[in-house]
Structures are given as C-alpha cells and as structure tokens.
C-alpha cells in the first residue's frame, strides 16, 4: 500500500480508469433516488431538481477554485514552507493547464470533480422538505470551492497522506474511495446543515414522541440503492488504482470487498430491524446497504474479505440503532439518514481500515484522519454555514413548508394527479 506512488500509468490502465469513472456517477444517481424517495411526495421534484442544482454548483466551484487547492503534490509550489506540513495545493485557478497535465493528474481531477458532486448531494438529502434551493446551491458551492478541496488535498496528497513518509506513522492516512474526504465530510456537513435549518415542521411536537414521516416512495429508495452499487464498485476500483497504487490484476478483490461490505450490512440491518420492530424496515435496510458501501470506500482496497464482511456487519448493526437514537433521543431530524449513513459509517470505515490493515501503526494514521475530520472540519463547517445562513436563509418560510417545496419553489407538483390527503403531522 503506497498511496503516494507516482508510477506512470500505461495507456490500458488509463483507458480502464476513464471507463470506470464514466460509470461512477451511477453512485450519485442512486443517492439522488434514495434522497427523493425518503422525502415527501410534495417535495420530490424539488429534491431531484435540487440534486442537479447542487451538483452543478459544486462542480463549477471546484473547477473555478477548488481544483487549485486540491491539486496533487506535483503541482504544489507554495504552502510547503513548513516542510512536512503540506497544507494546500497551488495549481492553476479556473481549471487552467488541464489539457497539458499528465494522464494521472487528469484522472485525479476527474475523480475529485465527481467527488465534489457526490459530497454536495449528502447535506441536500438531509435538508429535504425545508432546505431552499438557493441555500442548497450555496452550501454546495462552499463545499466544492474550499472545504472538500482542502480535505481532498490532505487525504490524497498532503500532510495526512504523507504521515507515513514524514512521521513514520503506518503508510499514511489511507482512504482510497473517499470514505473520509467525501462521505464522512459530507455527513458532518449534513449534521451542520440540519442543526442550523432545524427539524421539519411538526416533526417534534410539544408532547409525545417524534412524528413518523416515512419516505414517500420506498421503491425509489431500494432501486436507488441498487443503482448506487454499480457506481460504488467503479468508484472504489478507480480510487484503489489512483490513490492506493493497486494494479489492475488486484482489482477483483476490491470489487468483492465492496459487495461483501454492502451485503453484510444489509443482512445485519435486516436482522436488527426484524428483531426491533417484528418486521424488516425497507428504508432502514436501504440505509444499512448504503452504510456498508460507505465503509467499503475506506476498506475495500486494504482489508481481506473477512475484514470487509465484519466491517459491513458492524455498520449494518449500528445504522438502524443510531438512526433511531438520532430521531427519538437526540431530536435530530435527518430524513435521508445521511449523518449516520455517510458520517458515522465513513468514520467507522476509516477506523476499520486501520484495524484490519497489515501495516503496523496504520490505526494511528487512520485515527489522525478521523480526528481531523471530526475535530477540525465539523466546527469549521458549522461556523461557515452559520454565517451563510445569515446571508441566505437555509429554511423555507413556514407557508412554503406547509404547501410543499414543489409548489412553493417550483410552482408545480411532482405528481399532479395524486390525491392529496390532509397532513396528519401538523398538530
């Protein structure tokens, strides 16, 4: 495992990775379906349009500004004054120099571009049914321009990746598929957004338990989970080749581990919900499946199949329990469960990758990465979103929430022929 390897790619590897990167957006499409299905029917069109809006916002911000910060170490010319602390890249702004860059750098940029699109989607799902489109786009722009590029640089080229080389800590922070830089960071951003936006109206009434607001289309949710699998396998394979120096001959175990993590997590969630509620819960099972995929982003290129199985099982057990804890005990309204599915599962995947990695000291390297995400990025995200909320209000007006985001923001419903029933959640 040498994450900083700069071995040039043969043309066949370049072609293979490019093909895989063209399949990887299916993970984003799957997540978009899951987000839309877990929201309410009167916000479905806004959710899907919002997916395109936040993706566009994040991608443009990343190309204009973020790619310069995220740039790999070869492109760095400043911020190296402190020697072993490579804090930010210094590539060209506005995507300049892309056509003349090496094939590896072009692939890295494309991978990071897709990652920026993915990370923008995570808080958007959590803010469903009350987060305004403009606010979602602004959050995505900040993530794509500054926050994600910084963490991506640290993870894949900067000081975290160089922990092994500079400080003798394992092989440095290892995160081939972006469990930390994309998913955990996105989950923490989602937590900050929903803390600031607050819960949906009627979710936590004055008396009694929280109101159940089930997703409006479980078929979307489950089909989205299946679609996400295809993209996720491609994503992990490219990540393993790009950042973990996995040869094409070593890709099958990565794909197997990805599938094992997801399936083990699904079986665990299915069993836990069966025991807890008497019947398996479909939307929680989808959350468990996605949590397994998220853990695989960190582990798939490092651990053995048994390790991947165990990691997925643990993720599948804690996902439904934490979702329940968040809603019932902590009063955190997260319709898509992204804080658990991406945040908690991402952090667990990073730790598990260290526990099961063959290199001594890898656990410490992984914990340093986890500490950076949790201790530095969460307060930073909360602070920056709190300021943003003062400029562009995150939450829609009460009347808009009552009407539904589709009517309020788009002027039309996703399902105009549906019979609308009285909303029982408004007490």
């Amino acid at each position: 495992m040498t994450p900083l390897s700069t071995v040039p790619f043969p043309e066949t590897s370049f072609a293979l990775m490019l093909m895989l990167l063209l399949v990887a957006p299916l993970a984003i499409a799957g997540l978009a379906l899951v987000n839309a299905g877990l929201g309410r029917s009167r916000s479905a069109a806004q959710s899907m349009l919002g997916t395109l809006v936040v993706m566009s916002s994040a991608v443009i911000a990343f190309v204009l500004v973020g790619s310069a910060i995220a740039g790999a170490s070869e492109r760095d010319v400043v911020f190296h004054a402190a020697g072993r602390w490579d804090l930010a890249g210094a590539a060209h702004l506005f995507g300049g120099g892309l056509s003349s860059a090496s094939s590896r750098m072009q692939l890295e940029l494309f991978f990071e571009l897709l990652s920026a699109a993915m990370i923008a989607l995570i808080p958007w799902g959590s803010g469903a049914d009350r987060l305004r489109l403009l606010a979602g786009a602004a959050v995505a722009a900040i993530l794509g321009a500054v926050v994600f590029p910084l963490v991506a640089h640290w993870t894949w080229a900067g000081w975290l990746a160089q922990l092994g080389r500079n400080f003798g800590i394992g092989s440095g922070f290892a995160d081939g598929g972006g469990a930390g830089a994309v998913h955990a960071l996105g989950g923490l951003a989602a937590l900050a957004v929903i803390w600031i936006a607050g819960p949906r109206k009627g979710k936590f009434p004055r008396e009694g338990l929280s109101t159940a607001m089930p997703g409006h289309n479980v078929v979307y949710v489950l089909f989205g989970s299946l679609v996400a699998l295809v993209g996720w396998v491609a994503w992990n394979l490219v990540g393993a080749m790009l950042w973990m120096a996995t040869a094409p001959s070593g890709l099958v175990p990565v794909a197997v581990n990805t599938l094992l993590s997801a399936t083990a997590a699904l079986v665990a969630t299915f069993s836990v919900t069966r025991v807890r509620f008497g019947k398996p819960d479909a939307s929680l099972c989808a959350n468990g499946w996605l949590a397994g995929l998220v853990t695989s982003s960190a582990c798939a290129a490092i651990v053995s199949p048994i390790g991947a199985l165990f990691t997925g099982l643990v993720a599948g057990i804690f996902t439904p329990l934490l979702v329940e804890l968040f809603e019932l005990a902590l009063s955190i309204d997260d319709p898509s469960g992204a804080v658990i599915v991406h945040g908690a599962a991402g952090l667990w995947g990073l730790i598990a990758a260290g526990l099961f990695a063959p290199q001594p000291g890898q656990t410490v390297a992984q914990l340093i990465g986890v500490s950076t995400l949790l201790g530095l990025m969460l307060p930073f995200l909360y602070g920056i979103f709190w300021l943003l909320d003062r400029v562009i209000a995150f939450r829609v007006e009460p009347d808009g929430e009552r009407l539904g985001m589709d009517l309020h923001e788009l002027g039309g419903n996703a399902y105009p022929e549906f019979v609308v029933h009285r909303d029982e959640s408004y007490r």
Partner: protein
Amino acid sequence: MKYAGLAVMPAGFFLTIAAIILFSGAGQRAAFVLCGVAVEVMGLVVAVRGHMQLRDENR
C-alpha cells in the same frame, strides 16, 4: 452549551497534532491521539446535549 461543545472539539484535534510533533514512540503517540479523539467526542456530546436543550426550549 452547543457552541462550547463545538469550541472544545478543535482542542482535541490540536492534541492529535501535538502527538505527531512531540512523540516519536508508537505507544505514546497512539495514547495521545486516542486522548485527542476522546476530547473531540466529549465536545460532540456536549454540542448534541446543547442542541437537545435548545430544541426542548423551542418546542
């Protein structure tokens, strides 16, 4: 209370950074890094408790 929790969390991160700079032994480093993560988790717990208090007051 929520902001106090969030303010404590970076202290855990700097403890982790201190572990990298100050210690070369694997055991000492691991212990210090674990302490840093523990401080962050405590900060997060305080922030969540603060959030719950605010929610109860606003109900």
